[in-house]
């Protein structure tokens, strides 16, 4: 299970966001370069979708197989400002893509996500904040030639693993962290995007001139 929120920020303000995050997280910045392949089952098979993620930021690419379930529903889930959903993941050998092709899956689309991320703890929850540009490839698997799908816009995502016993606490930890980012961007459930915030430019300018100076959580 994981809790997740997303938001968008203009690319020109990403540097300011990074300054803010360095100050807040107290964790080293990690480079993100992930080739994400979305596969769907062929017409003969029960309909299903699986994602393969190839981490290209490491010296040796590593693969993860990921299944994302539907959002948790119900009164409890609706009241949360974060989305809660089941996740199943497994690291896998580099034969993962060939494996899924062999069992009848087809490539639906692929993207390259580039940017940076921070992993840290807030209120006992393990948060990952990632700031990425989503890029498309002009030819199959041509990650070196990828271009942004929405130039000028970056996506910010905060995720945290959760269990059925503690997802409300994890959701609360994410929500409280989002407050610190609110001058720059608004984060919400992926289905409830609110766009860029009007205070972003002023907040970014303030961060760039002060160079941060915010206490680590």
């Amino acid at each position, binding site marked *: 299970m994981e809790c997740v929120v997303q938001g968008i920020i203009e690319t020109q303000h990403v540097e300011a966001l990074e300054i803010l995050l360095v100050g807040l997280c107290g964790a080293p910045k990690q480079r993100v370069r992930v080739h994400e392949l979305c596969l769907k089952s062929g*017409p*003969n098979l029960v*309909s299903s979708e699986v994602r393969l993620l190839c981490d290209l930021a490491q010296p040796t690419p590593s693969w993860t*197989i990921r299944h994302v379930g539907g959002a948790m529903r119900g009164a409890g889930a609706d009241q949360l400002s974060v989305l809660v959903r089941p996740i*199943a993941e497994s690291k*896998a050998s580099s*034969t993962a893509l060939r494996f899924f092709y*062999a069992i009848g899956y087809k490539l639906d689309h692929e993207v390259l996500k580039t940017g940076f991320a921070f992993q840290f703890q807030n209120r006992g929850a393990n948060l990952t904040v990632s700031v990425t540009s989503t890029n498309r490839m002009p030819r199959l698997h041509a990650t070196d030639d990828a271009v942004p799908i929405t130039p000028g816009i970056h996506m910010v995502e905060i995720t945290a693993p959760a269990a059925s016993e503690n997802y409300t606490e994890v959701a609360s930890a994410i929500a409280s962290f989002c407050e610190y980012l609110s001058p720059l961007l608004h984060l919400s459930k992926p289905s409830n995007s609110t766009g860029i915030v009007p205070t972003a430019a002023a907040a970014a300018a303030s961060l760039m001139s002060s160079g941060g100076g915010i206490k680590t959580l």
Partner: protein
Amino acid sequence: MPVKWLMHFQPNQGTTLTSQVMTEACAVAESFPGVSRDGRWRSSMTFYRAVPRDQSLPQPSDLPRDLIGISLHDLPNEFLFVMRSQRLILRAQSSVQTVIDKLQSYKGRFFINFEGVQYKWGDFKLRIGKCLYNPNESLRGIVMEVEYLPLSSMDKSQRVMEEFYEIWREAVASKLLAGQFINTEVNFSEYGLGDSYTPQHTAVLYGMCVVQVIASSNKNQ
């Protein structure tokens, strides 16, 4: 990772395999000087079938019928898939089984467990076990996994493994069992595997061995 060979007991034509073979094979192992019993072992294998979108129709011919998943006794946190027709192996964490469950496009059709006794004999580990069809626990075969701890190169360990194989066959022959142990021969390069031994090699060995075990079990029933 130490090199392994995998053998199975091939009953003579027209004879039925019984668990007496397991008893006798263990007696042979226990007769080796300096051998010590080293607990039990268990690996398991899942045979998958595709779930077609229209379940009133037979399984489409373009979907694999030989997808197996293996959980090895010495790698409890991992799971490997083998597809012999494609010479394909996938090595993953054991959580991949949850992913496959969630996808619902492939389901476990039947299961075979390999379980038995483990011995330590000098630089060798010997694992003698029954192949039990799950769920009715019917005996389908007897296997022996031989591990040579000092070496991970298959080329360099070939001679010592061949010598062990001869020692084993002669010792078993003296028990006058109605059959013999046959080594599983695999062309690992067809699976993209090299000389340095890995869990993927073990998965391929079990994948090949179980086909032979089931074939001889069906022939002698």
